[in-house]
Structures are given as structure tokens and as C-alpha cells.
């Protein structure tokens, strides 16, 4: 049952991802990207990471894709259908990407990965919240600093001068 869901989700996600990189119309590419994000949220559910699935929808679909759509709207001429999609080296790059996939897949299927007998904590979200201010206290604060620095930087860059 789970395997069936995995295969369906994988087909959906990968074909949407292919559409993202090949569609001529950038706004369509952005909507395909949103479908990829949904598919990945589905994988997170299959992996018993429901919190991450919601965060994926909240941040990637709610926030990051909105930013990308705004970027497309704000840069007008990129809607031009006459412009080529790819640069001149796309054939080479395509071969390279295919090669990378073959190598990665070959390697990952050959390694005997260790497995765990541990069980999921009773309340993973509670555990995660405790970890954020416990084990990961420093990254937690750094994340806040990173976000604010990114915000300040982006405001300075994007502000309309004069």
C-alpha cells in the first residue's frame, strides 16, 4: 500500500519537476514547482514527518513560491515567448545531469545502509520544540539572525532609490 503511494507520488513529483525545468512559460513553471512542493510534503508524510510536511506547505508553498511569482511579475520581459529557454550548453548539461543521476543511483543502491530499531518519540513536535531551545539552541538563534540579515539585505537591494 505504502509502496503504491510512493510510486504514484514519485511519478507526480518527478514529472512536475521536469516540467519546471523545461516549460517555456515561467509562470507555469512556478505552478509546476508548487506541485513538486506538494509532492514532497506527501513524501514527508510517508516518512512520518508530519510537522515537516506542514512546514513544507507553509513555507515553500505559502511563502517562497509567492516570492518567486512576485519576481516573475516584477521582471516583465521574461514573459517573452520568443526568448530561448536554455543556454547553448544545455545538451552537455543534460548529459551531465543524467550521468550524475546514474552514478548516485548506482552508489546508493549498492551501499548496505545501517538500520535502526529505535521508535519514533511519542510526541515528536514537543521533542522538536525542546530540542530547538536545548541541543540546537545556537542554530536556533543563528537562524533568527540569518533571517533578519537576509531581510535587511534584501530591503537594501530591492528598495527603489530616489
Amino acid at each position, binding site marked *: 500500500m505504502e509502496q503504491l503511494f510512493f510510486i504514484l507520488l514519485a511519478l507526480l513529483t518527478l514529472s512536475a519537476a521536469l516540467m519546471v*525545468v523545461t516549460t517555456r512559460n515561467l509562470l507555469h513553471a512556478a505552478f509546476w514547482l508548487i506541485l513538486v512542493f506538494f509532492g514532497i510534503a506527501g513524501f514527508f508524510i510517508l516518512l512520518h514527518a508530519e510537522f515537516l510536511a506542514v512546514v513544507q506547505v507553509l513555507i515553500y508553498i505559502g511563502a517562497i513560491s509567492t*516570492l518567486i511569482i512576485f519576481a516573475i511579475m516584477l521582471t516583465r520581459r521574461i514573459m517573452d515567448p520568443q526568448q530561448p529557454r536554455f543556454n547553448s550548453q544545455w545538451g552537455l548539461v543534460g548529459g551531465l545531469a543524467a550521468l550524475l543521476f546514474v552514478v548516485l543511483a548506482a552508489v546508493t543502491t549498492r551501499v548496505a545502509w545501517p538500520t535502526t530499531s529505535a521508535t519514533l518519540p511519542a510526541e515528536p513536535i514537543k521533542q522538536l520544540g525542546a530540542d530547538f531551545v536545548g541541543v540546537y539552541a545556537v542554530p536556533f538563534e543563528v537562524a533568527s539572525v540569518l533571517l533578519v540579515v*537576509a531581510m535587511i539585505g534584501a530591503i537594501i537591494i530591492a528598495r527603489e532609490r530616489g
Partner: protein
Amino acid sequence: MVPLTWYLVLAAALFAIGMFGVLARKNAVAVLMGVELMLNAVNINLLAFWRYTALGELVGHAFAVFVITVAAAEAAVGVALFIAVYRQRDTVNVEELDAMKG
């Protein structure tokens, strides 16, 4: 149950597609979308490894949340750069953006 390698192969495929997008697309926003695909592939790997090798503690969760945070910051600054560059140069075609001084 789905074996771990399925997830790893899936993530590898997604990563390769993302890399193709980053290296082959002309438009900077499309390049950014490729980067997002690659980051998502990484997150799948993080959580798959967490699920199959470290279920007891929430390392994979924490790392994935931090990756998402970095992705959000990157997208914010990246899009701001596109807007600024577009205003200056009237293009976001990465091949035309090779001159160091505007």
C-alpha cells in the same frame, strides 16, 4: 514498507533535474527554481536517513527545518537581486549578466 534506497534514488533524480535547471536555463528566476528543487532533494535525503537510521532523536527534522530556513533566506535575497539587476540592466538573462561593472 518502502526501502530506504527508493527515497535515495528519488532524491538523486530530483537533484539531477534541479541541477539541469540551474545549469541550462537562461532566466535567473528559472535558475532559482532549479536551486529550490535541489534543496528539496536534500531535505528528502535528510528525512529518509532520519527515518531509517536515527528514528529515536529528531536530528533529521531539525536539520531539515534549518535547510528550509536557509532556503527562504536565499530566495529572499536572490529575488531582491533579480529585481535590482532588472531595474539596472532590463534583463535577468544570466548570460547577459557577465560584465563586472555596470
